[in-house]
């Protein structure tokens, strides 16, 4: 057995104990009297007969910003699918907004993994945002002024203002930059006032200034608007100082908790099976260094896999 595989086996054993350690009394959700927005207990998922991750314990209160982290191909996006009810959990219990996954999807805003619009697409940003409001309704809206029409327009303007996209919302979306498109898509996901926002790698393929700007926007949405956010990411650094909670998924195991608990050199080195260092900057922020993109054993699975 090669050293990496041996280390990974060590991870799978030890990782089960990580969540258990905090399962006892660490539910610092702001309103722990109410149902948590998200509750996972011993959750596991299986795709094609292979267990992607297991032993995930997680409670998320309203207005919390949670990141789902882990190497490529470990099943981070699969976590979102489970929360949407598109894939059943193989073990454990999953409750979303107090019900079974899939039952409360109209109260969830979902942003799939990076879609970029074709540059020649001649549809305005406002129209794409508006589709999030009533794009799934049959029939065509009557072209007469009405109270409902006005309310819809006001809501579109409000949510575009919230994400700071007013300056370019009336341009064809294909001509907006990646960061601008991402803001408009976040507005689209927010327009029905969801209680939970599921974001799949929203910072992917954005440049650094846009990464931190969009991360700050998401942090503001969760803390000021009270929307719980679960965000899949492969790089923790741009979002780290906005986060309330992190979930680290690794082959077979997982660790969840506050960033201070989970993002330590010891925990990450165990989970990844390769040395990872967590540094603290002069202003007290954490920086994760040496995080492997894809361990050698994973090279047969790329973005096409259940990442």
């Amino acid at each position, binding site marked *: 057995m090669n050293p990496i595989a041996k280390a990974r086996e060590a991870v799978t054993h030890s990782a089960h104990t990580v969540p258990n350690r905090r399962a006892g009394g660490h539910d610092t959700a702001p309103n722990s009297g109410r149902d948590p927005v998200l509750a996972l207990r011993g959750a596991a998922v299986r795709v094609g007969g292979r267990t992607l991750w297991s032993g995930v314990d997680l409670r998320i209160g309203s207005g919390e910003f949670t990141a789902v982290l882990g190497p490529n191909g470990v099943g981070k996006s699969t976590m979102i699918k489970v929360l*949407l009810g598109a894939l059943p959990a193989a073990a454990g219990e999953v409750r979303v907004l107090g019900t079974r996954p899939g039952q409360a*999807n109209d109260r969830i805003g*979902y*942003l*799939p993994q990076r*879609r970029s*619009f*074709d540059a020649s*697409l*001649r*549809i*305005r940003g406002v*129209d*794409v945002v508006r*589709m*999030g409001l*009533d*794009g*799934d*309704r*049959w*029939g*065509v*809206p009557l*072209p007469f002024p009405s109270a409902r029409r006005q309310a819809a327009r006001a809501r579109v303007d409000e949510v575009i203002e919230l994400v700071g996209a007013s300056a370019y919302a009336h*341009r*064809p979306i294909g001509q907006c930059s990646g960061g601008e498109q991402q803001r408009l898509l976040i507005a*689209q*996901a927010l327009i029905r006032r969801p209680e939970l926002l599921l974001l799949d790698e929203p910072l992917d393929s954005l440049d650094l200034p846009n990464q931190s700007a969009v991360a700050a926007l998401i942090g503001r949405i969760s803390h000021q608007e009270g929307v719980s956010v679960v965000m899949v990411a492969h790089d923790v650094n741009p979002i780290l100082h906005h986060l309330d909670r992190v979930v680290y998924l690794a082959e077979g195991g997982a660790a969840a908790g506050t960033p201070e608990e989970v993002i330590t050199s010891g925990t990450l080195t165990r989970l990844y099976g390769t040395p990872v260092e967590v540094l603290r900057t002069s202003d007290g922020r954490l920086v994760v260094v040496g995080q492997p993109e894809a361990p050698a054993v994973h090279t047969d699975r790329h973005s096409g896999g259940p990442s």
Partner: protein
Amino acid sequence: MMLAESGAPAWSWNLLTDFQEMWSYPFMVNAFRAGAIVAVVAAVVGWFVVLRRQTFAAHTVSAVAFPGAAGALLLGVSAVYGYFTLCVAAALVIAALRGGGDHEESALTGTVQAFLLASGFLFTALYRGLLEGPQTILFGTFLGITSSQVTVLTVVGAVVLAALALLGRPLLFASVDPKVAAGRGVPVRALSVVFLVLLGAATAETSQITGTLLVFALMVIPAATAQVLTPRPALSLALAVLLAFAATWLGLTAAYYSPYPLGFFVTTIAFAGYLLALGWRSLREVLSRRAVATPAAREVTA
């Protein structure tokens, strides 16, 4: 087409008498009626075709309209049935070939398309009844559109438009943003199949005016022009209808008063509109860039 030689109608620059003269012939009245219906249906369906980037599917469907019409004539039935049967069948085959994937099976579709075109050519050779060969099927004619044909076009067109009115909004959502639409419970795959069938029906209608090779004149060019002119969905849809309508009626008038074929005029008018729209947009872009650049330059110098 032969009209110019037989009757030699002359354009008088008095629109009222010109239209009175054209509409004194029942076949011209039928042609204008059919043209209006086809323009509206083709423009609305075509608007979604352009938005969904399905012009290759539209091309395939229109190409098989040719063997459809030729085969129908060979069997001794009206070409209308041939158009509708093969166009809708082709749409269903394309939908089936796509399977679960998003991309089109372009190689297989192209192969079958070539074979069907060749079959159509054989059918016209076997039939021998077409005075002008396959030309009227390929490039369109306004002669001999019967009242019953207009009725069929109206009924099918009304069904297509009603279906699009019902499906329009989710179809737009599914066309622009399929993943999120699916997440919101929009039946993206089913909509895509239904749309292909509507596309088949609309193509069959359009083929009867523009001919099977020039279907794009009414289906793609007006919609593309409208989308160049404005990114507002409702406005560009209305513009597409208006442009298709104008191209058809102007084309019919031009074809009536000249010895040249209808398909040429409709296509040329639509194409001219597209070029004008492109020119107008680049002009506006240049002007707005200059408007943005000037105050910025002033700020720097100040």
